[in-house]
């Protein structure tokens, strides 16, 4: 049963992700953030709905669009913002940037600049969890485009044959960069296209479901079943979450491949608004409580920006530190 505290915590994490991403969008436009950023706004229900089931000792692997996963896992927002700024106080001491934020302390094994590269990492982490016992679970987030990477398919196979505690979460935000997922994932071999990677999981013997990725409670419920399967030693599951990203593939993307009308249609199904309506109607929260939480999120992001802007850059002499791990063999 979802308690009021839990529901409000989920709401807070969703609005914190949105506030963070909206602010990064502004800051990037102002030229304050170096490198590349890929924003998660619109997809909050997926990260929060799934990660709400994880506990200490569980792990996630993420993608190039990883800010939402980080925040849902509890990565410090100040450290994240400083990382985006390339500052010494960043989560990875300013050496990783947006696409490589990792925080092993909270189980975040890393955003990843290589599409689909989280799959093999998740297999390794899940193999370790199975070996150690204790019911640990790994969640592997990946987009619809990643489902056509060989490494992802090999990961599905390895997870199935080794019965690993992995929940594969497909964030089908309708586009692989600018290519509609309808065109990129061909599941009708003889004829036209049919986009549902859930079908592929079935071929590997992995139970899979299609989920409304704009509804945090629908994601939560499906993820609960999938995580429980993993903890009980029943092997991997796959959740095919239908969602949408509000911003471009990357900041600066001219988005010529989709219409304003299409974006507006999806915004009508906004996951935060939808959740707000449910919380209000069911009496879980009042408008005042939700406003306070939104204000708190905005303040947390303000603080993070101040922290990042006030932090020093790494010294040139540190250019090669924190970049390579020490070999242990």
């Amino acid at each position, binding site marked *: 049963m979802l308690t009021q505290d839990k529901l409000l915590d989920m709401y807070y994490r969703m609005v914190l992700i949105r506030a963070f991403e909206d602010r990064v969008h502004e800051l990037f436009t102002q030229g304050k953030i170096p490198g590349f950023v890929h924003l998660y706004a619109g997809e909050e229900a997926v990260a929060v709905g799934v990660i709400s089931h994880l506990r200490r000792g569980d792990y996630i692997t993420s993608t190039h669009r990883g800010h939402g996963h980080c925040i849902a896992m509890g990565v410090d927002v100040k450290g994240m913002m400083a990382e985006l700024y390339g500052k010494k106080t960043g989560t990875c001491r300013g050496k990783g940037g947006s696409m490589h934020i990792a925080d092993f302390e909270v189980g975040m094994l890393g955003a990843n600049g290589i599409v689909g590269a989280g799959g093999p990492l998740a297999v390794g982490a899940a193999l370790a969890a199975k070996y150690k016992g204790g019911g640990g679970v790994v969640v592997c987030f990946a987009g619809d485009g990643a489902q056509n990477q060989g490494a992802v398919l090999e990961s599905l196979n390895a997870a199935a044959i080794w019965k690993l505690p992995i929940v594969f979460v497909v964030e089908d935000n309708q586009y692989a960069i600018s290519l509609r997922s309808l065109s990129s994932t061909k599941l009708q071999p003889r004829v036209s296209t049919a986009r*549902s990677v859930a079908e592929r999981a079935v071929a590997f013997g992995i139970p*899979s479901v299609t989920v409304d990725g704009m509804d945090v409670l629908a994601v939560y419920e499906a993820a609960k079943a999938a995580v429980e399967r993993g903890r009980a030693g029943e092997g991997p599951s796959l959740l095919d979450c239908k969602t949408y990203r509000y911003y471009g593939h990357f900041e600066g993307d001219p988005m010529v491949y989709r219409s304003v009308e299409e974006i507006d249609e999806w915004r009508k199904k906004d996951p935060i608004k939808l959740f707000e309506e449910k919380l209000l109607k069911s*009496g879980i929260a009042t408008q005042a409580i939700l406003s306070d939480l939104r204000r708190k999120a905005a303040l947390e992001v303000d603080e993070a920006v101040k922290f990042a802007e006030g932090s020093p850059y790494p010294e040139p002499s540190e250019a090669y530190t924190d970049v390579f791990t020490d070999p242990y063999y």
Partner: protein
Amino acid sequence: MSTRVGLIINPDAGKDIRRLVSSASYTSNFTKVELGKRVVMGLNASGVDEVLIMHDNYGLGEDVVNMLSTHINTRLTLVETKGSGTVQDTLVAAERMRRSGIKAIVVVGGDGTLRAAFKSCGSDLPMVCVAAGTNNVTGAYYDATLAGYAAGLVATGVVGGECLRSAKALEVLINGRSSDVAVIDVAFMRKSYVGAKAIVDVSDIVYAIFSKGEPTDIGLASILGFLDPTPFESDRGCFVEFGDGGLEVKAIIMPGEFRVVRIKDYKNLNVDEVVSIPSGRYVVALDGERELEVYEGDSVSVRITRKGPLLINVYKVLNTVSGACKRGASFGRRS
């Protein structure tokens, strides 16, 4: 005037959370296209002039058209929707098909798909559901070719009303207003959200109203099937209050999943009877899918009516034709 039949292939049927919590099969898009093709081949054999097929986001209907249109006499036409990827597509497509004058409609999906088509087409249009969902109380387990053939024979007038049966319907009234309709069951659950829709835990159910439930059904209808078997044909339904103190019924709630359900009390309902539900906060499931939320202070009631979908009895259609064939008659196209 040409004879038209509608075909809706629901891309989302047979893919929900019950794949994770029960032994329910995943109904793949590939399977659905094959089912759709078989329906069309059956319709073609019956002599139907045109099949209107829903255009869906996954391109399943499009696949059927592309694969068959140059090989058969029946014309295949896609019916556009907004492509929302939700039940709205079925509602819109079925409505457009009805307005185009279809004589029957075939849906490939589950009880939810049939319900959506019924909501748009009403209780006078013959319909048949090819089982591709999870519990499939209304779905025909005959081969899809036979279902298509039977629908075509009804549409072309080879067989008549003797091969059709009227199901019942359950009208949900909230604050005096008709808010929605179910075909098989309406369940009131102590749950705070709709979430993943499908019912996976019957212990959440407080009240349920059934129009149908037989021992060969699974899903919530299985409860009535073991408690007090009631076919669509009968003029009664049942109101069940769940809880301790009465009977225990072992029912099959999902594929492979038996549950002991505690029944505090139950009573038969006559057609047109209205049941008032005690005020409270409920999530309401219609035909096994959580859809509505009602709140403390709402006045909620359910009316059982005879105005459910007009279902095609596939066995009866084919048996009628078989008898006529023995006497030398032939139906539909030769090839």
